């Protein structure tokens, strides 16, 4: 009983998936650190959360265990809260300064 998909997931697919996770997380962190737009930073956080979700789902499949899936559902909820709060804060900042560029927020510089 050799399912090619199972073989793939156990072998080369694991390397592939982990590479995808690393790359997505790297792209997300680069975006978060070096893009100077609030919206981009918010979306980069989403991308990093997605990368983590993929690792959870992959290892949940590997162990045939639902813990990872449920944890990723919790991450969905946390991401939803985070986006709602983040968008609200961005809207307030935009109302105040008229821009979403991080470089413009210099009032705390002293």
């Amino acid at each position, binding site marked *: 009983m050799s399912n090619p998909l199972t073989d793939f997931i156990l072998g080369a697919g694991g390397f592939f998936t982990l590479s995808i996770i690393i790359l997505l997380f790297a792209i997300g962190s680069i975006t978060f650190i070096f893009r100077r737009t609030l919206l981009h930073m918010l979306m980069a956080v989403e991308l990093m959360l997605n990368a983590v979700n993929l690792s959870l789902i992959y290892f949940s499949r590997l162990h045939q265990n639902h813990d990872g899936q449920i944890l990723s559902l919790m991450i969905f909820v946390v991401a939803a809260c985070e986006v*709602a709060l983040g968008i609200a804060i961005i809207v307030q900042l935009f109302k105040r300064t008229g821009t979403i560029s991080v470089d413009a927020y210099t009032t705390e510089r002293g």
Partner: protein
Amino acid sequence: MDFNILMYIVFGVVAIAGGLVLLFAKHPIRGAMGLLASMVALAGMYAILQAHSIAIFQLIIYAGAIMVLIIYFIMLLDIKSEDYLKPFSKLFWIGAPILALLAIFFIYKLYTAIGGKPNAFSDLSSVAAPEQSVQDFGGIKIFSKNLLTKYLFAFEYVSTLLFAAIVAVISIVQLDWKGRKNE
């Protein structure tokens, strides 16, 4: 090659491409579309990894709700072009290669550890592929049974978080900056 494996690889490449679009696209809405593509591709990967319910939740929550919210507000904010025409900070060409090299180094270490071997993850996996349990695994019934019995506390905890977030968002949005704009 199995069709599922092919689609898995295609979805992985699309996810990376979406992330790159998010990184390099100038306008936020292009970046948001890249992120959307990445999310939909990840949903496809989840479905192939037999997390059917999570794949659907990914589509409903991320693609259907969160991205709609983000795009809605990108449209609402009336972002001027000077906000995004200089997208990267000054240190981008120093920092980004370092981070990218770090990622590539991780992948290289991964490859040397497990890359070429077939069944590299067999030691880790507790159940390889018993056909019967594979059918049920990740289905909505077992998933929700687990969620509402074993993880009930986490479920309630997260719903409390959602409630707090609703209150917080409403209170933030109701703040009025007009009176103290020039403090």
